[in-house]
């Protein structure tokens, strides 16, 4: 057999030795590599991919101009949302793409969005990397500072608003210390699912720093700073955008948390100081104080929240909407309002002051709870004292979680006076009865008795502009675990003073589970619209008539 001969090595001193040494090294490498490969295997990257697909197909059989004015009287629409995430060890990246298509919709598109009938919109893109104690995010991310009084960029499911900060964030965490630096421009989902219109991205600039340290395993002390620059833009006749008003806000604050003091109580205090510049004019500084106490004295639990805001302006977008429909602004805060989430109707908290007290009594081996709640709030706006809003809300409830029955009953009274008037008596029930291992009936009901100052005609006292109306919602359903559910929905309301508007609503909804992959939901009928509020943002939802299918698929 011929040996391999490399002539240039012969020309070197001791070439043959070198040649042999090289052979040894090569073979040793081969041998050691074998051992290394067996005993210390190359770490395989942990790879995963997650795909979430949400597809909605609707047919609107009735859409008068006042409901969704951007669309025809009858129309189909297909909406799709795709979330994709890939993770390779400590690196993950992904995004979200929204697509929509309107069929049979002859409504013209506005000049700014010529593709309003069908389009795909890349909504989110992110890259997240964890390196030791650091975590870096580039692209879209949510961000909350403290209890959301200074900043909360987030998703509001009820309104279909999903706002992120598009930029970069770095977080360092070590033992009891954590620091976050983040900045970027606000990015909202451009397809607005309630009115089914396209919205602009706000592109407001936000920068935040948050530092937190835990001391002696007893309490945490934190400080934060948030800068925001919010532009109100207008579209000129030429189609170009122009900034009309620029508001910059500096918020500095601190917070202290005492969790589980002697296993009997939690205490949380947060303070924020705000300086705002509105188009070059500095406003008087504002501040916001929040206090939360939880006491655990079994069988009693006590919760007390209090707030004191003075000239503290909430930051929200002025994003230009293309439609004439009034859509709510995107709030950049999520401050504790102390309200029940569905009754948080007062968004303007600039001068709000108040407290909430809740006392729970637990019994029947912790299966049952009775609770009493009282809320008082005052202030809200810069108006004169006589016109300030005053809210009293008292309600009580009973909860029971047993093997056969789950009960959640509540009822109460809410009274708002000031520059508007609203008296509400409400009762809610959610009952679930299991009659076999995997079979159950669900009954959900709500009754609201309202008396409300509907319009504000000049010169006529609000008391003379009252209108009483009722809202009844009921749902009776049957669920079969692992298979799906069937529900009948019924609503009645005479909220609208327009007698041509429907008052009775009924629908049927079926949900079919697709194993671990998701579900398919089918809806036929009509549901009432009306006012819905979340975190102080309220909007009037249009009623819906027609059929709707929703497919959620996850791989």
């Amino acid at each position: 057999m011929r040996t391999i001969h490399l002539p240039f090595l012969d020309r070197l001193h001791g070439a043959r030795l070198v040649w042999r040494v090289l052979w040894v090294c090569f073979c040793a490498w081969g041998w050691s590599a074998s051992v290394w490969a067996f005993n210390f295997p190359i770490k395989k990257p942990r790879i995963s991919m997650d795909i979430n697909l949400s597809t909605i197909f609707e047919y609107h059989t009735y859409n008068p101009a006042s409901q969704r004015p951007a669309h025809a009287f009858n129309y189909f629409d297909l909406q799709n949302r795709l979330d994709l995430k890939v993770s390779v060890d400590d690196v993950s990246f992904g995004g979200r793409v929204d697509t929509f298509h309107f069929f049979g919709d002859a409504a013209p598109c506005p000049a700014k969005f010529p593709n309003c009938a069908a389009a795909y919109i890349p909504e989110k893109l992110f890259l997240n990397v964890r390196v030791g104690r650091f975590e870096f995010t580039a692209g879209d991310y949510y961000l909350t500072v403290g209890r959301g009084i200074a900043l909360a960029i987030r998703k509001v499911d009820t309104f279909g608003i999903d706002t992120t900060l598009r930029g970069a964030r770095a977080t360092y965490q070590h033992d009891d210390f954590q620091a976050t630096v983040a900045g970027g421009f606000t990015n909202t989902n451009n397809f607005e699912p309630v009115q089914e219109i396209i919205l602009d991205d706000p592109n407001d600039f936000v920068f935040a720093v948050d530092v937190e340290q835990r001391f002696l395993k007893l309490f945490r002390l934190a400080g934060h700073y948030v800068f925001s620059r919010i532009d109100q833009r207008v579209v000129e006749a030429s189609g170009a955008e122009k900034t009309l008003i620029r508001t910059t806000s500096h918020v500095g604050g601190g917070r202290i948390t005492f969790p589980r003091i002697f296993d009997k109580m939690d205490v949380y205090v947060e303070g924020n100081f705000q300086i705002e510049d509105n188009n070059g004019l500095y406003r008087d500084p504002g501040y916001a104080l929040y206090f939360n106490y939880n006491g655990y004295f079994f069988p009693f639990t006590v919760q007390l929240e209090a707030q004191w805001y003075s000239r503290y302006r909430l930051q929200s977008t002025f994003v230009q909407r293309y439609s004439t429909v009034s859509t709510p602004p995107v709030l950049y805060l999520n401050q504790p309002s102390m309200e029940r989430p569905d009754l948080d109707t007062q968004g303007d908290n600039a001068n709000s002051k108040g407290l909430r007290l809740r006392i729970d009594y637990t019994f029947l081996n912790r299966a049952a709870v009775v609770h009493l709640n009282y809320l008082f709030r005052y202030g809200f706006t810069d108006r004169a004292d006589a016109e300030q809003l005053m809210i009293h809300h008292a309600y009580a409830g009973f909860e029971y979680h047993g093997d056969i029955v789950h009960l959640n009953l509540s009822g109460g009274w809410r009274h708002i006076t000031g520059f508007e008037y609203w008296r509400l008596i409400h009762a809610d029930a959610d009952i679930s009865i299991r009659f076999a291992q995997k079979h159950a009936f669900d009954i959900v009901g709500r009754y609201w008795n309202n008396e409300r100052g509907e319009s504000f005609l000049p010169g006529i006292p609000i008391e003379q502009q009252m209108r009483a109306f009722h809202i009844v919602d009921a749902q009776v359903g049957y669920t079969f675990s692992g298979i799906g559910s069937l529900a009948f929905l019924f609503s009645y309301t005479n909220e609208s003073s327009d007698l041509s508007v429907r008052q009775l609503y009924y629908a049927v909804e079926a949900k079919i589970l697709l194993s671990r992959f998701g579900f398919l939901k089918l809806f036929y009928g009509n549901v009432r619209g009306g006012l819905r509020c979340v975190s102080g943002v309220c909007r009037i939802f249009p009623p819906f008539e027609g059929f709707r299918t929703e497919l959620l698929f996850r791989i």
Partner: protein
Amino acid sequence: MPLRDPMLPPQTLPPVLPHRSLSLQPDRCSRSLFLQTGRWLRSTTKIALVFLGLMGWIGCTGTQTKTDANAPAASKFVAQEAAPAPRFQLRDLRGETHSLDALRGKVVLLNFWATWCAPCLKELPHFQKMHEQYKAQGLEIVTVSVDEAQTVAQVGPLINRYGYSFRVLLDTEGRVVTQYNPNRHNPFSALIDHKGNLRMTHQGYTPGDEIEMEKKVKLLLQEAAAK
């Protein structure tokens, strides 16, 4: 071929036969190489040495692959059909930091819920029962509250009044829930095996769902105990 339910116990899976050409054992592999490298001075063996060195490396690397294949069938199955669960670090109600990595070796039932979510509150008592029943066997129930800043103050009182003793973590910013469940429909549960692989997800709650969940927890506990 239909997809196999990843929750099936490993015993029900067909055995994986080793491939003959890659069935070298590591000891034989290294000894054979050593003996042959001892005759390195013979030029006629040099080519063979190169060849064997190269093949040894490839073969033993291949053997590593086959070692996985020879492992209990469930491991292979997991590698093919189960994905690693996204790692996270979150704080609990006391301010202590918890990470998923620290729970490696245990079966983890991860549940996302909120104080305002009625089905979530119906599901939590079942988790408490499972926690009491299977904790000693290696089940760790980790519930993650996705309450945001506005309602997070209500998490502690709710947990206390019902006396839940499983872990309760806070995901106020939604950092973790969006990794597991971008749609953020609540409740949402994920079952993670003792190797840190995501074996099952479940969305929503209707009475009776906990029965299936418990069955799957038992299977994963058996699987963990068999290792």
